[in-house]
Protein backbone atom coordinates (compact mmCIF):
# COMPACT_ATOMS: atom_id res chain seq x y z
CA UNK A 1 0.00 0.00 0.00
CA UNK A 2 2.87 2.33 0.67
CA UNK A 3 3.94 1.70 -2.89
CA UNK A 4 0.59 2.88 -4.16
CA UNK A 5 0.71 5.80 -1.79
CA UNK A 6 4.01 6.78 -3.32
CA UNK A 7 2.58 6.32 -6.77
CA UNK A 8 -0.47 8.43 -6.05
CA UNK A 9 1.70 11.13 -4.56
CA UNK A 10 3.85 11.11 -7.66
CA UNK A 11 0.76 11.62 -9.78
CA UNK A 12 0.10 14.74 -7.82
CA UNK A 13 3.45 16.26 -8.61
CA UNK A 14 2.42 17.84 -11.91
CA UNK A 15 -0.60 19.37 -10.23
CA UNK A 16 1.40 20.69 -7.30
CA UNK A 17 3.97 22.07 -9.68
CA UNK A 18 1.20 23.65 -11.66
CA UNK A 19 -0.22 25.21 -8.53
CA UNK A 20 3.12 26.72 -7.62
CA UNK A 21 3.57 27.98 -11.15
CA UNK A 22 0.15 29.57 -11.13
CA UNK A 23 0.85 31.34 -7.87
CA UNK A 24 4.20 32.46 -9.22
CA UNK A 25 2.56 33.88 -12.31
CA UNK A 26 -0.18 35.57 -10.36
CA UNK A 27 1.99 38.32 -9.11
CA UNK A 28 4.03 38.69 -12.25
CA UNK A 29 0.82 39.05 -14.21
CA UNK A 30 -0.31 42.08 -12.27
CA UNK A 31 -1.44 44.77 -14.61
CA UNK A 32 1.17 47.41 -14.59
CA UNK A 33 4.31 47.24 -12.56
CA UNK A 34 4.30 44.94 -9.56
CA UNK A 35 6.86 46.88 -7.61
CA UNK A 36 5.10 50.21 -7.81
CA UNK A 37 1.81 48.54 -7.06
CA UNK A 38 3.22 47.13 -3.89
CA UNK A 39 5.23 50.14 -2.86
CA UNK A 40 2.28 52.38 -3.51
CA UNK A 41 1.54 54.74 -6.35
CA UNK A 42 2.85 57.72 -4.47
CA UNK A 43 6.12 56.24 -3.39
CA UNK A 44 9.25 57.89 -4.62
CA UNK A 45 11.05 56.22 -7.48
CA UNK A 46 13.94 55.20 -5.28
CA UNK A 47 11.63 53.29 -2.99
CA UNK A 48 10.02 51.58 -5.94
CA UNK A 49 13.40 50.57 -7.31
CA UNK A 50 14.44 49.29 -3.92
CA UNK A 51 11.23 47.30 -3.73
CA UNK A 52 11.83 45.80 -7.13
CA UNK A 53 15.33 44.87 -6.10
CA UNK A 54 14.25 43.23 -2.88
CA UNK A 55 11.52 41.28 -4.59
CA UNK A 56 14.00 39.99 -7.10
CA UNK A 57 11.89 41.29 -9.95
CA UNK A 58 14.96 42.49 -11.79
CA UNK A 59 16.27 39.07 -12.42
CA UNK A 60 15.33 37.11 -15.52
CA UNK A 61 12.06 35.21 -15.27
CA UNK A 62 13.58 31.73 -15.33
CA UNK A 63 15.87 32.61 -12.48
CA UNK A 64 13.00 34.00 -10.47
CA UNK A 65 10.97 30.88 -11.18
CA UNK A 66 13.77 28.56 -10.17
CA UNK A 67 14.46 30.31 -6.89
CA UNK A 68 10.74 30.51 -6.23
CA UNK A 69 10.28 26.78 -6.62
CA UNK A 70 13.34 25.86 -4.57
CA UNK A 71 12.41 28.27 -1.83
CA UNK A 72 8.84 27.08 -1.72
CA UNK A 73 9.87 23.47 -1.42
CA UNK A 74 11.93 24.45 1.58
CA UNK A 75 8.93 26.28 2.96
CA UNK A 76 10.71 29.59 2.58
CA UNK A 77 8.03 32.02 1.54
CA UNK A 78 10.09 35.09 2.10
CA UNK A 79 9.42 37.88 4.53
CA UNK A 80 6.44 40.09 5.03
CA UNK A 81 6.88 43.51 3.54
CA UNK A 82 4.80 45.07 6.24
CA UNK A 83 6.41 43.65 9.35
CA UNK A 84 9.48 41.82 8.13
CA UNK A 85 8.61 38.53 9.78
CA UNK A 86 9.25 35.34 7.86
CA UNK A 87 5.98 34.39 6.24
CA UNK A 88 6.36 30.80 7.32
CA UNK A 89 6.40 31.90 10.94
CA UNK A 90 3.24 33.93 10.44
CA UNK A 91 1.61 30.89 8.92
CA UNK A 92 2.76 28.67 11.75
CA UNK A 93 1.23 30.85 14.38
CA UNK A 94 -2.03 31.19 12.51
CA UNK A 95 -2.41 27.60 11.35
CA UNK A 96 -3.65 26.08 14.62
CA UNK A 97 -6.57 28.48 14.79
CA UNK A 98 -7.72 27.77 11.26
CA UNK A 99 -7.28 24.04 11.69
CA UNK A 100 -9.18 24.15 14.94
CA UNK A 101 -12.27 25.83 13.62
CA UNK A 102 -12.06 23.92 10.36
CA UNK A 103 -11.96 20.48 11.88
CA UNK A 104 -14.36 21.17 14.70
CA UNK A 105 -16.84 22.44 12.11
CA UNK A 106 -16.36 19.39 9.93
CA UNK A 107 -16.80 16.97 12.80
CA UNK A 108 -19.78 18.90 14.11
CA UNK A 109 -21.44 18.80 10.69
CA UNK A 110 -20.85 15.07 10.37
CA UNK A 111 -22.25 14.31 13.77
CA UNK A 112 -25.48 16.10 12.96
CA UNK A 113 -25.82 15.57 9.24
CA UNK A 114 -25.19 11.84 8.95
CA UNK A 115 -27.87 10.69 11.40
CA UNK A 116 -30.33 13.21 9.99
CA UNK A 117 -29.74 12.04 6.45
CA UNK A 118 -29.84 8.38 7.39
CA UNK A 119 -33.06 8.68 9.33
CA UNK A 120 -34.67 10.73 6.60
CA UNK A 121 -33.77 8.08 4.04
CA UNK A 122 -34.99 5.29 6.29
CA UNK A 123 -38.36 6.93 6.86
CA UNK A 124 -38.71 7.68 3.17
CA UNK A 125 -38.06 4.04 2.33
CA UNK A 126 -40.90 3.06 4.58
CA UNK A 127 -43.24 5.45 2.88
CA UNK A 128 -43.18 8.04 5.64
CA UNK A 129 -41.51 10.62 3.50
CA UNK A 130 -42.67 13.77 5.25
CA UNK A 131 -39.58 14.15 7.39
CA UNK A 132 -37.40 13.48 4.40
CA UNK A 133 -39.10 16.08 2.23
CA UNK A 134 -39.02 18.63 5.00
CA UNK A 135 -35.39 18.02 5.76
CA UNK A 136 -34.39 18.23 2.13
CA UNK A 137 -36.07 21.57 1.65
CA UNK A 138 -34.75 23.06 4.89
CA UNK A 139 -31.24 21.89 4.11
CA UNK A 140 -31.46 23.31 0.64
CA UNK A 141 -32.50 26.72 1.80
CA UNK A 142 -29.97 26.85 4.61
CA UNK A 143 -27.22 26.09 2.15
CA UNK A 144 -28.10 29.15 0.13
CA UNK A 145 -27.80 31.53 3.02
CA UNK A 146 -24.70 33.65 2.63
CA UNK A 147 -22.26 32.55 5.30
CA UNK A 148 -21.02 35.96 6.27
CA UNK A 149 -24.57 37.25 6.52
CA UNK A 150 -25.57 34.40 8.77
CA UNK A 151 -22.48 35.15 10.83
CA UNK A 152 -23.63 38.72 11.34
CA UNK A 153 -27.16 37.66 12.21
CA UNK A 154 -25.96 35.16 14.77
CA UNK A 155 -23.43 37.63 16.03
CA UNK A 156 -26.20 40.08 16.65
CA UNK A 157 -28.61 37.65 18.22
CA UNK A 158 -26.33 35.44 20.23
CA UNK A 159 -23.59 37.80 21.16
CA UNK A 160 -24.34 41.48 20.95
CA UNK A 161 -27.93 41.43 22.08
CA UNK A 162 -27.79 38.64 24.55
CA UNK A 163 -24.16 38.29 25.60
CA UNK A 164 -24.42 34.51 25.39
CA UNK A 165 -21.26 34.03 23.42
CA UNK A 166 -18.20 36.21 22.92
CA UNK A 167 -17.61 37.99 19.65
CA UNK A 168 -14.01 38.93 20.12
CA UNK A 169 -11.12 38.22 22.38
CA UNK A 170 -8.16 35.91 22.44
CA UNK A 171 -8.33 32.16 22.08
CA UNK A 172 -7.74 30.60 25.46
CA UNK A 173 -6.08 27.38 24.41
CA UNK A 174 -5.68 26.22 27.95
CA UNK A 175 -9.28 26.68 28.94
CA UNK A 176 -11.58 24.30 27.07
CA UNK A 177 -14.81 25.92 28.17
CA UNK A 178 -13.75 29.41 27.25
CA UNK A 179 -12.28 28.12 24.01
CA UNK A 180 -15.50 26.35 23.17
CA UNK A 181 -17.54 29.49 23.75
CA UNK A 182 -15.15 31.53 21.69
CA UNK A 183 -15.30 29.27 18.69
CA UNK A 184 -18.96 28.35 19.01
CA UNK A 185 -20.27 31.06 16.71
CA UNK A 186 -17.70 30.61 13.95
CA UNK A 187 -18.13 26.85 14.10
CA UNK A 188 -21.90 27.07 13.83
CA UNK A 189 -21.68 29.30 10.79
CA UNK A 190 -18.97 27.22 9.13
CA UNK A 191 -20.85 24.00 9.75
CA UNK A 192 -23.92 25.04 7.85
CA UNK A 193 -22.46 24.45 4.40
CA UNK A 194 -20.95 21.01 5.04
CA UNK A 195 -24.00 20.04 7.07
CA UNK A 196 -26.28 20.68 4.15
CA UNK A 197 -24.07 18.84 1.70
CA UNK A 198 -23.38 15.87 3.95
CA UNK A 199 -27.01 15.49 4.98
CA UNK A 200 -28.12 15.51 1.36
CA UNK A 201 -25.55 13.07 0.14
CA UNK A 202 -26.05 10.76 3.12
CA UNK A 203 -29.76 10.73 2.52
CA UNK A 204 -29.39 9.93 -1.16
CA UNK A 205 -26.73 7.32 -0.57
CA UNK A 206 -28.65 5.57 2.19
CA UNK A 207 -31.82 5.62 0.13
CA UNK A 208 -30.05 3.92 -2.75
CA UNK A 209 -28.37 1.43 -0.46
CA UNK A 210 -31.64 0.53 1.23
CA UNK A 211 -32.91 -0.69 -2.12
CA UNK A 212 -30.03 -3.07 -2.54
CA UNK A 213 -30.39 -6.82 -2.36
CA UNK A 214 -28.00 -7.29 0.49
CA UNK A 215 -30.14 -5.11 2.70
CA UNK A 216 -33.12 -7.26 1.85
CA UNK A 217 -30.97 -10.26 2.66
CA UNK A 218 -30.04 -8.85 6.05
CA UNK A 219 -33.70 -8.24 6.82
CA UNK A 220 -34.56 -11.73 5.60
CA UNK A 221 -32.17 -13.12 8.19
CA UNK A 222 -33.98 -11.24 10.92
CA UNK A 223 -31.70 -8.26 11.44
CA UNK A 224 -33.56 -5.55 13.35
CA UNK A 225 -34.11 -2.31 11.44
CA UNK A 226 -31.80 -0.26 13.59
CA UNK A 227 -28.88 -2.61 12.89
CA UNK A 228 -29.78 -2.73 9.23
CA UNK A 229 -29.57 1.02 9.02
CA UNK A 230 -26.52 1.75 11.09
CA UNK A 231 -24.43 -1.35 10.57
CA UNK A 232 -25.24 -2.45 7.07
CA UNK A 233 -26.56 0.53 5.18
CA UNK A 234 -24.27 3.23 6.51
CA UNK A 235 -21.20 1.13 5.87
CA UNK A 236 -22.02 1.22 2.19
CA UNK A 237 -23.39 4.72 2.14
CA UNK A 238 -20.13 5.96 3.63
CA UNK A 239 -18.43 5.65 0.29
CA UNK A 240 -19.98 8.56 -1.57
CA UNK A 241 -20.17 10.52 1.66
CA UNK A 242 -16.42 10.34 2.10
CA UNK A 243 -15.83 11.52 -1.46
CA UNK A 244 -18.16 14.47 -1.19
CA UNK A 245 -16.86 15.38 2.23
CA UNK A 246 -13.43 15.80 0.75
CA UNK A 247 -14.77 18.26 -1.80
CA UNK A 248 -16.79 20.01 0.88
CA UNK A 249 -13.60 20.68 2.74
CA UNK A 250 -12.60 23.06 -0.01
CA UNK A 251 -15.70 25.13 0.53
CA UNK A 252 -15.01 25.00 4.22
CA UNK A 253 -11.51 26.36 3.76
CA UNK A 254 -12.84 29.22 1.69
CA UNK A 255 -15.39 29.93 4.36
CA UNK A 256 -12.79 30.19 7.09
CA UNK A 257 -11.29 33.22 5.38
CA UNK A 258 -14.40 35.31 5.81
CA UNK A 259 -15.47 33.90 9.13
CA UNK A 260 -12.12 34.53 10.75
CA UNK A 261 -12.37 38.13 9.63
CA UNK A 262 -15.85 38.60 11.07
CA UNK A 263 -15.07 36.99 14.39
CA UNK A 264 -11.60 38.47 14.71
CA UNK A 265 -9.88 35.10 14.92
CA UNK A 266 -6.11 35.12 14.43
CA UNK A 267 -6.13 32.48 11.74
CA UNK A 268 -4.72 32.18 8.25
CA UNK A 269 -7.67 33.98 6.72
CA UNK A 270 -7.10 37.13 8.73
CA UNK A 271 -3.47 37.18 7.70
CA UNK A 272 -4.45 36.68 4.09
CA UNK A 273 -6.92 39.54 4.08
CA UNK A 274 -4.50 41.83 5.83
CA UNK A 275 -1.87 40.81 3.36
CA UNK A 276 -4.08 41.63 0.41
CA UNK A 277 -5.15 44.94 1.81
CA UNK A 278 -1.58 45.81 2.68
CA UNK A 279 -0.31 44.65 -0.67
CA UNK A 280 2.01 42.34 1.21
CA UNK A 281 2.50 39.95 -1.63
CA UNK A 282 4.94 37.49 -0.08
CA UNK A 283 2.32 36.92 2.58
CA UNK A 284 -0.45 36.55 0.01
CA UNK A 285 1.68 34.22 -2.05
CA UNK A 286 2.62 32.05 0.88
CA UNK A 287 -0.90 31.78 2.16
CA UNK A 288 -2.47 30.95 -1.19
CA UNK A 289 0.10 28.20 -1.59
CA UNK A 290 -0.65 26.99 1.90
CA UNK A 291 -4.40 26.82 1.33
CA UNK A 292 -3.99 25.02 -1.97
CA UNK A 293 -1.59 22.50 -0.45
CA UNK A 294 -3.99 21.80 2.39
CA UNK A 295 -6.76 21.16 -0.08
CA UNK A 296 -4.63 18.84 -2.19
CA UNK A 297 -3.52 17.01 0.90
CA UNK A 298 -7.07 16.57 2.13
CA UNK A 299 -8.13 15.16 -1.23
CA UNK A 300 -5.29 12.68 -1.10
CA UNK A 301 -6.32 11.71 2.42
CA UNK A 302 -9.90 11.30 1.21
CA UNK A 303 -8.78 8.87 -1.47
CA UNK A 304 -6.84 6.97 1.15
CA UNK A 305 -9.80 6.80 3.52
CA UNK A 306 -12.00 5.67 0.66
CA UNK A 307 -9.84 2.65 0.00
CA UNK A 308 -9.94 1.75 3.66
CA UNK A 309 -13.71 1.92 3.68
CA UNK A 310 -14.41 0.07 0.44
CA UNK A 311 -12.55 -3.23 0.15
CA UNK A 312 -13.35 -3.47 -3.54
CA UNK A 313 -11.17 -0.51 -4.38
CA UNK A 314 -7.44 -0.95 -4.59
CA UNK A 315 -5.47 2.15 -3.91
Amino acid sequence: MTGSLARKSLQLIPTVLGVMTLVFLMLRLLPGDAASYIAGENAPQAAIDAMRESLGLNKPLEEQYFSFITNTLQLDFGRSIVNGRPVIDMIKSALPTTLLIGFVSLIFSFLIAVPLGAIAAYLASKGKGAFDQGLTMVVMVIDMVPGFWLALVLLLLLSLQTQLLPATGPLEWGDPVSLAKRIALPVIVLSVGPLATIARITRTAVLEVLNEDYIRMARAMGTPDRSVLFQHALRNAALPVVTIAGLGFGRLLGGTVIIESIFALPGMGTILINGINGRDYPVVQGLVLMYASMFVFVNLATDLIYTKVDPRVKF
Partner: protein
Amino acid sequence: MSVVSTPANLRIPASLPLPDFSGLRRLMGHQRSLIGLAIVLPIVVIALAGPYLPIADPLETNPTVSLQGPSLDHPLGTDKIGRDVLSRIIAGARTSLFVGFSVATIAVGAGIVLGTLSGFLSKWVDTAVMSVVDVFLAFPGLLLAIAMVAVFGAGTWQVILAIAISDIPRAIRLQRSMVLGLKTRPFIDAARMAHAPSWWILVRHVVPSTIAPMLVVASIYAANAILVEASLSFLGLGITPPEPSWGNLIKDGQQYLQTGWWISTFPGIAILIISIGLHLVSDGIRERLDPMMRS
Protein backbone atom coordinates in the same frame (compact mmCIF):
# COMPACT_ATOMS: atom_id res chain seq x y z
CA MET B 1 -28.92 14.46 -7.10
CA SER B 2 -29.83 13.82 -10.63
CA VAL B 3 -27.83 10.72 -11.27
CA VAL B 4 -30.51 8.08 -11.09
CA SER B 5 -32.17 8.09 -14.47
CA THR B 6 -30.04 10.15 -16.80
CA PRO B 7 -27.84 8.07 -19.07
CA ALA B 8 -24.26 7.91 -17.94
CA ASN B 9 -22.86 10.19 -20.55
CA LEU B 10 -25.16 13.01 -19.63
CA ARG B 11 -25.14 12.76 -15.91
CA ILE B 12 -24.21 15.78 -13.97
CA PRO B 13 -21.42 14.72 -11.65
CA ALA B 14 -22.06 14.44 -7.98
CA SER B 15 -19.43 17.03 -7.18
CA LEU B 16 -21.77 19.84 -8.12
CA PRO B 17 -23.99 21.17 -5.36
CA LEU B 18 -27.18 20.53 -7.25
CA PRO B 19 -30.47 21.51 -5.69
CA ASP B 20 -33.00 18.93 -4.70
CA PHE B 21 -36.43 20.28 -4.12
CA SER B 22 -37.95 16.89 -3.59
CA GLY B 23 -40.35 18.48 -1.17
CA LEU B 24 -41.90 20.07 -4.18
CA ARG B 25 -41.78 16.81 -6.07
CA ARG B 26 -45.49 16.89 -6.54
CA LEU B 27 -45.12 19.92 -8.66
CA MET B 28 -44.01 19.21 -12.16
CA GLY B 29 -40.53 20.23 -13.15
CA HIS B 30 -41.67 22.99 -15.34
CA GLN B 31 -43.81 24.35 -12.57
CA ARG B 32 -40.76 24.58 -10.38
CA SER B 33 -38.96 26.46 -13.11
CA LEU B 34 -41.90 28.79 -13.35
CA ILE B 35 -41.84 29.51 -9.66
CA GLY B 36 -38.13 30.13 -9.93
CA LEU B 37 -38.64 32.45 -12.82
CA ALA B 38 -41.46 34.13 -10.95
CA ILE B 39 -38.91 34.97 -8.33
CA VAL B 40 -36.00 35.88 -10.54
CA LEU B 41 -37.66 37.83 -13.33
CA PRO B 42 -39.45 40.40 -11.19
CA ILE B 43 -36.20 41.08 -9.39
CA VAL B 44 -34.40 41.55 -12.67
CA VAL B 45 -37.13 43.84 -13.93
CA ILE B 46 -37.14 45.90 -10.78
CA ALA B 47 -33.40 46.12 -10.83
CA LEU B 48 -33.35 47.33 -14.39
CA ALA B 49 -36.18 49.72 -13.83
CA GLY B 50 -34.56 51.04 -10.68
CA PRO B 51 -33.83 54.62 -11.64
CA TYR B 52 -37.34 55.07 -12.96
CA LEU B 53 -39.13 53.77 -9.94
CA PRO B 54 -40.90 56.16 -7.56
CA ILE B 55 -38.54 55.44 -4.72
CA ALA B 56 -35.82 57.43 -3.07
CA ASP B 57 -32.54 58.12 -4.79
CA PRO B 58 -30.01 55.57 -3.58
CA LEU B 59 -27.29 58.16 -3.45
CA GLU B 60 -29.26 60.85 -1.70
CA THR B 61 -27.99 61.38 1.77
CA ASN B 62 -30.20 62.87 4.41
CA PRO B 63 -28.63 62.94 7.84
CA THR B 64 -31.88 63.93 9.46
CA VAL B 65 -33.28 60.49 8.92
CA SER B 66 -30.18 58.62 9.89
CA LEU B 67 -30.55 55.09 11.17
CA GLN B 68 -34.28 54.85 11.05
CA GLY B 69 -35.98 51.52 11.11
CA PRO B 70 -38.43 50.30 8.50
CA SER B 71 -41.27 52.76 8.08
CA LEU B 72 -43.76 53.88 5.50
CA ASP B 73 -41.37 56.40 4.05
CA HIS B 74 -38.46 54.02 4.06
CA PRO B 75 -39.82 50.46 3.88
CA LEU B 76 -36.49 48.90 4.68
CA GLY B 77 -35.05 51.67 6.79
CA THR B 78 -32.16 54.08 6.33
CA ASP B 79 -28.47 53.92 6.97
CA LYS B 80 -26.16 56.13 8.94
CA ILE B 81 -26.12 58.93 6.44
CA GLY B 82 -29.80 58.70 5.71
CA ARG B 83 -29.76 56.78 2.49
CA ASP B 84 -32.80 54.65 1.80
CA VAL B 85 -31.95 51.01 2.19
CA LEU B 86 -34.59 49.73 -0.22
CA SER B 87 -33.38 51.82 -3.11
CA ARG B 88 -29.81 50.89 -2.35
CA ILE B 89 -30.75 47.25 -2.45
CA ILE B 90 -32.43 47.76 -5.80
CA ALA B 91 -29.37 49.59 -7.10
CA GLY B 92 -27.18 46.86 -5.72
CA ALA B 93 -29.35 44.30 -7.45
CA ARG B 94 -28.30 45.65 -10.79
CA THR B 95 -24.66 45.14 -10.00
CA SER B 96 -25.02 41.77 -8.36
CA LEU B 97 -27.31 40.37 -11.03
CA PHE B 98 -25.05 41.66 -13.74
CA VAL B 99 -22.11 39.93 -12.14
CA GLY B 100 -24.08 36.73 -11.68
CA PHE B 101 -25.31 36.44 -15.23
CA SER B 102 -22.03 37.52 -16.75
CA VAL B 103 -20.11 34.92 -14.82
CA ALA B 104 -22.60 32.25 -15.80
CA THR B 105 -22.42 33.18 -19.45
CA ILE B 106 -18.64 33.34 -19.55
CA ALA B 107 -18.18 30.15 -17.58
CA VAL B 108 -20.66 28.15 -19.61
CA GLY B 109 -19.44 29.63 -22.87
CA ALA B 110 -15.82 28.87 -22.19
CA GLY B 111 -16.77 25.53 -20.74
CA ILE B 112 -18.67 24.46 -23.82
CA VAL B 113 -15.95 25.53 -26.21
CA LEU B 114 -12.95 24.22 -24.31
CA GLY B 115 -14.70 21.16 -22.96
CA THR B 116 -15.90 20.11 -26.39
CA LEU B 117 -12.48 20.60 -27.88
CA SER B 118 -10.87 18.70 -25.07
CA GLY B 119 -13.26 15.81 -25.35
CA PHE B 120 -13.39 15.61 -29.09
CA LEU B 121 -9.87 16.26 -30.23
CA SER B 122 -6.76 14.20 -29.70
CA LYS B 123 -5.62 12.74 -26.46
CA TRP B 124 -2.77 15.25 -26.28
CA VAL B 125 -5.11 18.20 -26.35
CA ASP B 126 -7.25 16.51 -23.77
CA THR B 127 -4.38 15.76 -21.41
CA ALA B 128 -3.02 19.26 -21.73
CA VAL B 129 -6.35 20.93 -21.06
CA MET B 130 -7.22 18.64 -18.18
CA SER B 131 -3.84 19.16 -16.53
CA VAL B 132 -4.43 22.88 -16.49
CA VAL B 133 -7.97 22.32 -15.27
CA ASP B 134 -6.70 20.11 -12.46
CA VAL B 135 -4.31 22.84 -11.35
CA PHE B 136 -7.13 25.33 -11.05
CA LEU B 137 -9.35 22.82 -9.30
CA ALA B 138 -6.66 22.29 -6.70
CA PHE B 139 -7.67 25.63 -5.23
CA PRO B 140 -10.74 25.95 -3.08
CA GLY B 141 -13.26 28.03 -5.04
CA LEU B 142 -13.58 31.15 -2.94
CA LEU B 143 -9.87 31.22 -2.36
CA LEU B 144 -9.10 31.25 -6.05
CA ALA B 145 -11.52 34.11 -6.52
CA ILE B 146 -9.87 36.00 -3.69
CA ALA B 147 -6.44 35.41 -5.17
CA MET B 148 -7.58 36.50 -8.60
CA VAL B 149 -9.14 39.63 -7.22
CA ALA B 150 -5.93 40.34 -5.38
CA VAL B 151 -4.18 40.16 -8.72
CA PHE B 152 -6.73 42.02 -10.82
CA GLY B 153 -7.73 44.56 -8.24
CA ALA B 154 -11.21 45.65 -7.29
CA GLY B 155 -13.96 46.51 -9.75
CA THR B 156 -16.91 44.93 -11.52
CA TRP B 157 -15.17 43.34 -14.47
CA GLN B 158 -12.31 42.20 -12.32
CA VAL B 159 -14.74 40.46 -10.04
CA ILE B 160 -16.57 38.86 -12.94
CA LEU B 161 -13.34 37.55 -14.34
CA ALA B 162 -12.09 36.35 -10.99
CA ILE B 163 -15.23 34.36 -10.25
CA ALA B 164 -15.50 33.06 -13.79
CA ILE B 165 -11.97 31.72 -13.53
CA SER B 166 -13.00 29.52 -10.65
CA ASP B 167 -16.07 28.23 -12.50
CA ILE B 168 -14.61 27.71 -15.96
CA PRO B 169 -12.53 24.64 -15.03
CA ARG B 170 -15.59 22.89 -13.63
CA ALA B 171 -17.61 23.76 -16.69
CA ILE B 172 -14.87 22.43 -18.94
CA ARG B 173 -14.75 19.21 -17.01
CA LEU B 174 -18.47 18.74 -17.20
CA GLN B 175 -18.73 19.48 -20.88
CA ARG B 176 -15.78 17.27 -21.63
CA SER B 177 -17.24 14.30 -19.81
CA MET B 178 -20.50 14.70 -21.67
CA VAL B 179 -18.73 14.95 -25.00
CA LEU B 180 -16.63 11.90 -24.22
CA GLY B 181 -19.77 9.97 -23.51
CA LEU B 182 -21.46 11.09 -26.69
CA LYS B 183 -18.40 10.41 -28.79
CA THR B 184 -18.89 6.69 -28.50
CA ARG B 185 -22.52 6.69 -29.46
CA PRO B 186 -23.50 5.08 -32.72
CA PHE B 187 -24.92 8.18 -34.31
CA ILE B 188 -21.47 9.70 -34.36
CA ASP B 189 -20.16 6.71 -36.26
CA ALA B 190 -23.06 7.01 -38.63
CA ALA B 191 -22.28 10.65 -39.28
CA ARG B 192 -18.65 9.85 -39.87
CA MET B 193 -19.54 7.14 -42.30
CA ALA B 194 -21.53 9.70 -44.20
CA HIS B 195 -18.29 11.64 -44.52
CA ALA B 196 -19.47 14.48 -42.38
CA PRO B 197 -16.62 16.77 -41.36
CA SER B 198 -15.70 16.76 -37.69
CA TRP B 199 -16.71 20.29 -36.91
CA TRP B 200 -20.10 19.72 -38.46
CA ILE B 201 -20.62 16.62 -36.35
CA LEU B 202 -19.68 18.64 -33.32
CA VAL B 203 -21.94 21.54 -33.90
CA ARG B 204 -24.93 19.74 -35.29
CA HIS B 205 -24.93 16.61 -33.17
CA VAL B 206 -22.73 16.68 -30.14
CA VAL B 207 -23.10 20.15 -28.73
CA PRO B 208 -26.91 20.43 -28.87
CA SER B 209 -27.23 17.43 -26.57
CA THR B 210 -25.08 19.15 -24.03
CA ILE B 211 -26.92 22.45 -23.98
CA ALA B 212 -29.62 21.46 -21.55
CA PRO B 213 -27.35 20.10 -18.81
CA MET B 214 -25.18 23.17 -19.20
CA LEU B 215 -28.22 25.36 -18.69
CA VAL B 216 -28.84 23.55 -15.45
CA VAL B 217 -25.41 24.38 -14.15
CA ALA B 218 -25.46 27.87 -15.64
CA SER B 219 -28.20 28.80 -13.26
CA ILE B 220 -26.21 27.40 -10.38
CA TYR B 221 -23.13 29.31 -11.46
CA ALA B 222 -25.14 32.51 -11.50
CA ALA B 223 -26.43 31.94 -7.99
CA ASN B 224 -22.98 31.00 -6.81
CA ALA B 225 -21.41 34.03 -8.47
CA ILE B 226 -23.82 36.38 -6.75
CA LEU B 227 -22.86 34.81 -3.47
CA VAL B 228 -19.14 34.94 -4.13
CA GLU B 229 -19.31 38.52 -5.33
CA ALA B 230 -21.12 39.42 -2.16
CA SER B 231 -18.44 37.70 -0.13
CA LEU B 232 -15.67 39.47 -1.97
CA SER B 233 -17.33 42.85 -1.71
CA PHE B 234 -17.97 42.23 1.94
CA LEU B 235 -14.27 41.68 2.43
CA GLY B 236 -13.62 44.92 0.59
CA LEU B 237 -12.01 43.07 -2.25
CA GLY B 238 -14.71 43.09 -4.84
CA ILE B 239 -16.98 45.92 -5.69
CA THR B 240 -16.19 48.91 -3.61
CA PRO B 241 -18.25 51.93 -2.70
CA PRO B 242 -19.67 54.13 -4.02
CA GLU B 243 -20.99 51.49 -6.37
CA PRO B 244 -23.49 49.48 -4.37
CA SER B 245 -23.54 45.74 -4.40
CA TRP B 246 -25.35 43.53 -1.96
CA GLY B 247 -22.06 42.51 -0.48
CA ASN B 248 -20.78 45.94 0.39
CA LEU B 249 -24.23 46.95 1.60
CA ILE B 250 -23.96 44.21 4.18
CA LYS B 251 -20.50 45.41 5.00
CA ASP B 252 -21.76 48.92 5.52
CA GLY B 253 -24.15 47.67 8.09
CA GLN B 254 -21.61 45.61 9.97
CA GLN B 255 -20.70 48.33 12.42
CA TYR B 256 -24.33 49.21 13.01
CA LEU B 257 -25.56 45.75 13.85
CA GLN B 258 -27.13 46.80 17.06
CA THR B 259 -28.28 50.26 16.11
CA GLY B 260 -29.41 49.53 12.59
CA TRP B 261 -29.83 45.81 12.01
CA TRP B 262 -31.87 46.41 8.87
CA ILE B 263 -28.91 47.72 6.92
CA SER B 264 -27.18 44.38 6.80
CA THR B 265 -30.15 42.10 7.15
CA PHE B 266 -32.24 42.98 4.11
CA PRO B 267 -29.51 42.73 1.48
CA GLY B 268 -28.73 39.25 2.81
CA ILE B 269 -32.35 38.26 2.45
CA ALA B 270 -32.25 39.54 -1.11
CA ILE B 271 -29.29 37.28 -1.86
CA LEU B 272 -31.13 34.36 -0.33
CA ILE B 273 -34.26 34.99 -2.37
CA ILE B 274 -32.49 35.20 -5.66
CA SER B 275 -30.47 32.10 -4.86
CA ILE B 276 -33.63 30.17 -4.19
CA GLY B 277 -35.15 31.44 -7.41
CA LEU B 278 -32.14 30.50 -9.52
CA HIS B 279 -31.87 27.08 -7.92
CA LEU B 280 -35.54 26.45 -8.61
CA VAL B 281 -35.04 27.33 -12.25
CA SER B 282 -32.09 24.97 -12.40
CA ASP B 283 -33.96 22.17 -10.71
CA GLY B 284 -36.91 22.60 -13.02
CA ILE B 285 -34.74 22.32 -16.10
CA ARG B 286 -33.10 19.25 -14.64
CA GLU B 287 -36.48 17.63 -14.06
CA ARG B 288 -37.44 18.24 -17.68
CA LEU B 289 -34.08 16.84 -18.66
CA ASP B 290 -34.57 13.48 -16.99
CA PRO B 291 -37.69 12.29 -18.81
CA MET B 292 -36.36 13.76 -22.04
CA MET B 293 -33.18 11.80 -21.76
CA ARG B 294 -35.02 8.67 -20.87
CA SER B 295 -36.80 8.63 -24.19
